[in-house]
């Protein structure tokens, strides 16, 4: 590790003109929204910054915004690496993102309703039937069922990147259990503690209202006949890597954080075991995957769920958020059809761009993919967390051949996209004691309820901390930045 110096923090910054740099133009000028912040940060020496960085890390540890890492010898508490230099999104730019994210969530919800009812979009040949039939996330049990309020994807996370052309592109829609919102709020809180003076210079939206909006949304989908719904968050437990987020959400909403073992079914109603006996539960924001929510209906070995829960749901006695079977629409193969899905259900043009996607189940596209693996990113359709991704230009010849064999074995399982030029953002790199450009993306959070919707004005900017790396997922060693959306 280099020793910290008293030089200004940007003294050694060099951006790569092959990518869109979020702060600097190709003429080496600072973009308008960053000018004030850049000037403020330029006053810091590297030493100052090292101290501030340590302070920020302490804030995370003390707040318990951590996850556990297990090794053979010991359990270590770690924080999701956090970068002190925030990302700023201008008002106009944000409005487009917000409208686009909401548009996609609404279209996906209508799509899910159709898939579990008349399947008109399939009958009209817009989305191929085999894509749905072969999806592991399509739950036949949900066919014909009307979820309370008509909502499936109450909580959606949309992953966006900014390309070299300065435009945002959607990488994927996450509508199973999108996580990360707790870090959005945690990052803001850590930054306010560390750089409190900086906030006097910018008018940005706060992000602390997510909990109250989430509660409003989940209360809006209460079962029929319930006046004041009892809502809970269902977590797999303290050892789950997202436990911090689960407890954060419960706390923000002021509702109970329950585990499967805290719930009990009687006469088709769900009850939780309290110190006063059984108390009825009406809405469950579950952070447990479909296949684990009810051992009687799905994975019989699951200890995380509640036996009989799905039956209660089917009888309308409890509402599950997000609805089971929602995952069929965040299959990466479905993503290919998003422009058509938006057009079909909303009769609108997509506000946000899709990255051009090749689906390997189509013979001509498969042929192209197999001939151009080195120029593409290959992704399995049903994985998340950055697992199973191959980036063509990082592969050796042998690895490319292996990828080809894997794709040929089950083409339905893979999509391919051109290698996008994710924008870069100055990021403090501890090992180098300096700022360096790193690739970033943005996850936005959208809520849909009965006659109510909300997009969090902010988001999780994820950073690929390794030089040149394009995979930003936290499970792949990524970090994050506070993200400011500026008021008009």
């Amino acid at each position, binding site marked *: 590790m280099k020793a910290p110096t008293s030089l200004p923090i940007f003294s050694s910054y060099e951006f790569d003109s092959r990518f869109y740099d979020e702060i600097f133009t190709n003429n080496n000028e600072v973009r308008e929204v960053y000018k004030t912040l850049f000037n403020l940060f330029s006053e810091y020496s590297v030493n100052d910054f090292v101290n501030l960085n340590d302070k920020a890390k302490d804030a995370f*540890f*003390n*707040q*318990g915004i951590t996850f556990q890492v297990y090794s053979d010898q010991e359990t270590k508490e770690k924080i999701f690496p956090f970068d002190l230099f925030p990302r700023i999104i201008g008002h106009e730019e944000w409005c487009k993102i917000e409208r686009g994210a909401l548009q996609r969530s609404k279209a996906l919800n209508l799509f899910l309703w159709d898939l579990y009812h008349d399947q008109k979009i399939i009958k009209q040949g817009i989305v191929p039937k085999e894509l749905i039939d072969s999806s592991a996330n399509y739950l036949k049990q949900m066919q014909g069922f009307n979820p309370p309020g008509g909502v499936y994807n109450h909580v959606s996370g949309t992953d966006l990147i900014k390309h070299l052309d300065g435009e945002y592109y959607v990488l994927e829609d996450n509508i199973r259990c999108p996580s990360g919102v707790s870090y959005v709020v945690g990052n803001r809180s850590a930054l306010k503690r560390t750089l409190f003076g900086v906030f006097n210079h910018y008018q940005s939206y706060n992000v602390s209202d997510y909990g109250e909006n989430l509660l409003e949304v989940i209360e809006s989908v209460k079962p029929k006949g319930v006046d004041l719904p009892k809502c809970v*968050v269902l977590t797999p437990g*303290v050892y789950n890597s997202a436990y911090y987020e689960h*407890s*954060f959400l*419960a*706390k923000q909403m002021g*509702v*109970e*954080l*329950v*585990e499967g*073992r*805290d719930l009990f079914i009687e006469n088709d109603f769900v009850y*939780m*075991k*309290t*110190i006063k*006996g*059984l108390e009825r539960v009406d809405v469950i924001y579950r952070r447990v995957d479909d296949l684990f929510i009810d051992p009687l209906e799905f994975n019989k070995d699951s200890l995380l769920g509640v036996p009989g829960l799905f039956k209660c749901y089917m009888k309308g006695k409890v509402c599950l958020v997000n609805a089971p079977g929602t995952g069929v629409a965040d299959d990466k193969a479905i993503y290919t059809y998003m422009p058509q899905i938006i057009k079909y259900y909303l009769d609108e043009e997509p506000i946000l761009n899709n990255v051009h996607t090749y689906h390997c189940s189509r013979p001509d596209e498969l042929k192209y993919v197999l001939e151009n693996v080195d120029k593409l990113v290959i992704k399995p359709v049903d994985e998340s967390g950055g697992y199973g991704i191959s980036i063509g230009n990082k592969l050796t010849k042998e690895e490319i051949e292996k990828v080809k064999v894997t794709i040929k074995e089950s083409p339905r399982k893979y999509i391919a996209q051109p290698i996008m030029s994710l924008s870069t953002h100055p990021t403090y790199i501890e090992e180098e004691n300096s700022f360096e450009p790193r690739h970033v993306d943005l996850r936005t959070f959208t809520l849909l309820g009965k006659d109510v919707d909300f997009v969090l004005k902010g988001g999780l900017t994820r950073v690929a901390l390794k030089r040149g790396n394009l995979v930003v997922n936290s499970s792949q060693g990524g970090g994050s930045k506070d993200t400011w959306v500026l008021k008009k």
Partner: protein
Amino acid sequence: MLARVANNLFWMGRYIERSEHLARYMNVNYFSSLDAPNDISQSRQFVLRSMLFVADEEEIKDIKELDEQEVLFDIGLNPDKPFSIVSSINNAQQNANGARDLISTELYESINTLKRTVNNYDKNIFVKNGLFDFTTMVTTNVASLRTKIRGTLLHDEVYAIIMLGIYIERANQVIRIINSKYNDALIEKVNFGSSLTKSYEWTTLLKCVESYDMMRRYYRKVPTSHTVLDFLILNPHCPRSIMNSLKCIDSYIGYLSKEEFPDKDSAAFLIGKLKYEHMFKTIEDVQGDLKGFIEKLVDDLSLVGEKMDKDYFSLY
């Protein structure tokens, strides 16, 4: 409140209280022994044995010669010893973690910060010359945690459960400390021929439970076994007395059960009975058979714990 989470909070309260008593006991015993009036009470072995007795009496059974640094490490910072301060604080933090959505951010962060501080404390500094700083840091932080419990939580069921944990543990710890100091006084008497009634250990006992100044103010006399035990066992106004703990346990269980005539098999009934039994005891009743009194009280408190488990946590 979920039964499982209530159980977490109850134990969080117990572990927080336990860590403070242990830290204070180490601090007071070690440093007061430096000024002790005779060879026995100044002896390292005597002091270390007394510390280990309070931490876990099983530990001293087979050990003939105690090593100071080893004993200090075991009680203070040894994560492999379930009775150590670090284990108590880690357990308190884990229990808080399982209920962090119910407690205030201020309280959770303080527990978390204390856990990090204790776990990162330099072992070598602690066992060589850091005993005072470490134990003072723990007691100060636990006092701050108690303030956060009182000052930032709703005084509702969550609060009542935590306070029950605190007071049951306090009663247990104070009775253990009384037992330990009574044994120390006996050893002094046997080996040094000093008076059991006027033993120096009664003063240490008062300091171990932070009640020395108030006891002096109350009696305006030099502490004797009679006045000290009366003050620490039966005085309802002394915050560390057994009587005060029983009163508080009764009041918090009353808040939870809200029944005027609790079931005879319930924790509320048992603690009410226990409180009234002690209200009409005299110190002569206690001193007649202090050993028997201590044993019975420990059993009774353990039974209250069992009944609480049945009444409030059994659905879990």
